[in-house]
């Protein structure tokens, strides 16, 4: 039948057409952040790599780019953490399990955890706030392939103890042999007994062999400059520092122009870049 063929063709080819996914579980993590687990209705796995993002769509409201926070090694579901900042994200926070969203993607580059550039080396993860979201995918991936990597160091900074994400999972990581996890908060509260200060205060607390270490850095725009400066001083090579850039990735497919950083399309060339790739790109960091 011709009509069916056209129908199938449309589904495959329209880069703007979302496919349905069902919300399986969700949980409020902080005041603004909520965790969601989805499965594509087609039954296929999302097929992403750590650091990639999807465009989440709600009909009548629109779309927003959201990083995947789960590892492809963890089955055929995928997880997102959504900060409530706009119309779409506010509406997502209202969703109940069983309800559906549209998904396009996965899009963009990823943390190259599966490549020789990272395998066999120590990995230093440095995350500020919701910067932990895409990085968690990489952490899970690395832990699920533990033998492929050297030491694993995780530095996490939140604004306040109430803004910490994946608290239980971080406790698990902390308890894992060969994993070093250090945390700080910008402003402590009455119960916080840990470190207080910006994330860079944690970097001097760890030792690593700069030649054998790869850093994966993700956080708010202001964080990158200071963290990267510190890492370069510790003799990490620019090509061994990976960052993930946030931009307005409206279409996700390199057409709409909104996410452009000088000559680079963050949605296609990024969001993950090595520092070597972006250090001379004026608008990047």
């Amino acid at each position, binding site marked *: 039948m011709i009509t069916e063929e056209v129908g199938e063709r449309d589904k495959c*080819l329209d880069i*703007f057409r*979302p496919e349905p996914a069902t919300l399986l579980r969700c949980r409020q993590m902080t005041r603004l952040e909520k965790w969601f687990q989805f499965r594509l209705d087609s039954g296929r796995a999302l097929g992403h790599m750590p650091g990639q993002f999807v465009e989440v*769509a709600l009909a009548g409201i629109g779309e927003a780019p959201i990083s995947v926070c789960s590892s492809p090694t963890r089955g055929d579901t995928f997880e997102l953490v959504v900060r409530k900042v706009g119309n779409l994200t506010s509406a997502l926070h209202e969703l109940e399990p069983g309800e559906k969203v549209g998904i396009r993607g996965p899009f963009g580059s990823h943390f190259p955890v599966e490549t020789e550039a990272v395998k066999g080396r120590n990995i230093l993860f440095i995350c500020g706030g919701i910067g932990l979201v895409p990085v968690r995918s990489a952490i899970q991936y690395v832990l699920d392939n533990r033998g492929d990597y050297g030491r694993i160091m995780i530095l996490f900074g939140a604004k306040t103890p109430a803004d910490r994400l994946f608290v239980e999972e971080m406790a698990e990581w902390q308890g894992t042999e060969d994993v070093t996890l250090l945390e700080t908060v910008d402003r402590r509260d009455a119960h916080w007994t840990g470190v207080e200060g910006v994330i860079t205060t944690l970097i001097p607390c760890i030792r690593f062999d700069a030649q054998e270490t790869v850093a994966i850095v993700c956080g708010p725009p202001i964080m990158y400059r200071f963290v990267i400066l510190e890492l370069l001083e510790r003799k990490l090579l620019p090509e061994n520092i990976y960052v993930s850039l946030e931009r307005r990735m409206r279409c996700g*497919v*390199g057409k709409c*122009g*909104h996410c*452009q950083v000088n*000559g680079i399309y963050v949605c296609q060339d990024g969001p993950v870049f090595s520092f070597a790739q972006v250090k001379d790109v004026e608008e990047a960091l």
Partner: protein
Amino acid sequence: MIKIVGKDALETWVDEVIARMRTYGVQAKGDHFSFESLRRAADLRLDYDVTILPPKKYLQPPRETLLRFSGAVEYESVFDEDPFVIFGIHPYDLEAILQMDAIFEKDQRDEHYLRRRSKAVLVACDVETVSENVFAGCMGTAYLESGFDILITKIDGGDYVVDIQTDAGRSIADSLKSAKDANKKALAARREVWNKNKARLRRHKLEVPLEELPALLEAGYEHPIWEERAQRCYSCGSCNLVCPTCYCFDVRDDVGWDLKHGVRARVWDGCLLAGFAEVAGGHNFRRNRADRYRHRYYRKGKYLPEMIGKTACVGCGRCITACTAKIANPVEVYNALLEEKDDH
């Protein structure tokens, strides 16, 4: 096939096309010219100087429905595959369309653009009247020898050389088959038009060889001109919106009264507009006017050339006319970068 016809035969043919399919063509609109639905060949004004908007508006409409939805995840792609003809595209605008083709084909194919484009028959025409601000002669777009389906050139003496190059062109030019083939003399006369246009479509003179533009921009990132000119920039986006090579868009949902049915549409956007690089939550990655102003000239002269291998300014001069603050002349900007370099 290349034919030569008189004005009457040309009009007869255009009327035949109009009778057969959706046809657009350049017409007078007040004291300006505009691409509009063409009802009769007599309205077609191949002697125009420049149109208010480029023919881009038929290939990437100002507002274009991408999807229809009828529930939370019930989406249906909307494609426009109804064939149409555009009469009277100047070579610089044709070059812009060829660049859009490259962009929408690149990497992830944009079927919404490409399917509409595949049904479009592009009838170009060489420039007869030089517009106020055109500088296509400096941009290598004063004439094109290919890329169109059909090219119409008015030659000395008043006849038209009609060059039919593609199957799409042949599909609407049946009735021209019996017309006289253009002889050597006619082709020489056309060459004459091309040479003349190359020389005269230079109301502004670019001093920079095109191939040196990316390097010139590379060196000029901190040039004071960006800040100086942006002081007078309204961020109104007029330069973007009239530009034949600007294709950036926003995506918006429009929902019906039942709050269930509706459409997802893309709408023209512009990198000069204040909110262009703003993300949800309010952080604006290009907050300063000067940064947005500079971005436009880099896109045209460096970023897009790096991506598609062509300078993404075709010299139509529309931005120069459209900018009420008179700061948008690309030739002035690029020449200023050159002067500064020579000073050092």
